């Protein structure tokens, strides 16, 4: 009974996701007729070369990026909400996103991109932008710090506050950099902060996808343990969960996701908070085995919808992605807070 209704919801979600992916490939600022799109996908050569490039090198990578980053951030949000027992947690809570931003701010705002660029060329990583390398470095430094601290802090509540403090500290560092930076560099940094799924491309995806797969793979492995954790650490330990190990796995998985997503797409907000809640309310269960697949589908859908809306045909410019996700996400978060008000202690 429950299983069958879950399967129906899951199938509907999956079908919706396929439709959205198709839309992501069909819709764009340049109009390409659906039949031409199909022949391009089937490798027919009767279509303008420009259209082929648009489909293969812009729309498909962009759709895959929105899909995988959306799914990854959704799952990471789910992990954080359970680990920290906090309904408004997402992967940015660890400070890893702030670490990535700080790395970017440092290179972009100080105008040091060329130095990192030389490093990139020297190491053969020149296809990855200097911004990406700085972001990954920043995220890694914070990840190592968080893992180090988590070994020494027993209370998960204190770990949460430490994560927030790291974020605040890094944010104030960025403010200082902004205060002394060139207006031109400030603008470049702001545009990075808008978030975007379209700057990644195939070569970026070659790093992004395996990293996200690793992150989601670790998450899937811990779903059973996260279920036990719903009832508190003492209960989880009593049924056989190794809490220290679970924390390290969850923090690493989330940080990998937040780190590479932020590095390649900028700080993407809202998906991580909204997707798990939408999934939870759709399934009507807190069982991670059920909500994790739907969280991935929901996160991917929000990513795709936001991406499609951001560049709807009819206007030439592209809307900032975070503005679009926030437009979708803000009402959801408000709804969550109102629903939780009665029982929440947050």
């Amino acid at each position, binding site marked *: *009974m*429950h299983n069958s209704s879950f399967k129906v919801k899951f199938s509907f979600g999956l079908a919706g996701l396929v439709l959205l992916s198709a839309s992501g490939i069909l819709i764009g600022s340049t109009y390409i007729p659906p039949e031409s799109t199909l022949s391009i996908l089937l490798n027919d050569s009767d279509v303008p070369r420009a259209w082929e490039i648009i489909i293969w090198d812009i729309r498909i990578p962009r759709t895959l990026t929105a899909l995988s980053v959306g799914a990854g951030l959704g799952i990471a949000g789910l992990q954080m909400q359970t680990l920290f027992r906090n*309904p408004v947690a997402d992967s940015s809570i660890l400070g890893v996103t702030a670490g990535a931003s700080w790395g970017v701010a440092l290179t972009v705002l100080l105008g040091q991109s060329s130095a990192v660029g030389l490093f990139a060329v020297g190491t053969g990583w020149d296809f990855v932008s200097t911004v990406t390398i700085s972001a990954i470095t920043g995220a890694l430094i914070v990840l190592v710090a968080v893992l180090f601290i988590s070994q020494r802090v027993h209370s998960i509540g204190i770990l949460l506050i430490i994560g927030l403090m790291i974020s605040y500290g890094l944010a104030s560092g960025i403010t200082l950099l902004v205060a002394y930076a060139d207006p031109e560099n400030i603008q470049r940094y702001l545009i990075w902060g808008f978030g975007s799924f379209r700057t990644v491309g195939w070569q970026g995806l070659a790093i992004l996808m395996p990293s996200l797969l690793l992150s989601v793979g670790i998450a*899937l*492995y811990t*779903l*059973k343990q996260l*279920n*036990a954790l*719903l*009832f*508190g650490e*003492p*209960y989880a*330990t*009593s*049924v*056989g*969960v*190794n809490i220290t190990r679970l924390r390290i796995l969850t923090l690493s998985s989330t940080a990998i996701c937040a780190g590479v997503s932020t590095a390649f797409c900028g700080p993407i907000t809202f998906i991580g908070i909204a997707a798990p809640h939408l999934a*939870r309310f759709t399934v*009507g*269960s*807190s*069982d991670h*085995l059920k909500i994790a697949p739907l969280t991935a589908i929901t996160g991917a859908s929000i990513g795709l919808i936001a991406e499609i809306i951001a560049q709807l045909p009819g206007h030439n410019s592209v809307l900032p992605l975070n503005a679009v996700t926030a437009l979708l996400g803000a009402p959801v978060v408000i709804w969550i807070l109102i629903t*939780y008000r009665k*029982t*929440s*202690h947050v």
Partner: protein
Amino acid sequence: MSNPHNRPLLSTSDLEVGYKDNSLLVGLNLTVGTGEIIVLIGDNGTGKSSLLRTLSGLQRRRSGSITIDEQELSELSVHDRSRQFATVFSGRPENILMTGFEYVGQGRYPFTGWNGQLRQQDIEMTHRCIQQTNADHLVDKSIKSISDGELQRLTLARALAQEPNILILDEPTSFLDRKSKQLLADLIRELAENQNLSAIIATHDVEYFSPIASQTWEIPTGAPAGINMARGDAC
């Protein structure tokens, strides 16, 4: 009920319970036989919960030894420990959406594979445990919508689903009405009689549990203390 077949299941030798710089209980030589029910009483803060956590391996002991099923407790893996002890904590889980069945099914944790999927035998066991606690009507109900007494029966069922040798119950009746308290005490007595399950119950509700207990452990006020042991009413 002092059963001649009872063999010692859990025993301690010169056990000291407490925290790094705070000794709560000293010189404990306790023995729990199979199918035995022990009532643990004492004022708040005297170390009832600490003792329960120490006995079930959730808290580090200060000194002494604990033997379970002829093995030293600290040599057991987290997984093996979870096959010996199942703990019933008091209090309601917050903001959790689950049916009664899903909730009890969580108790199969030590038996399911890495992905936690319930197999046929896990589903059957879950149903059997729900039946044992007379909670059949709660299978499809959301745990948010049921009473404290009903939830406590499901929590007991969830502990049974773990197939433990010893049930550890930490103030299991603190939120319950009189009828639910009596029901819970009756259930535990049945489980001890029929399945040879042992139980250690920390409680202030002595009137419900003393009649079914074979031992009473009383912690006097003033740390570090020993434990006053008495034969229970059910001997």
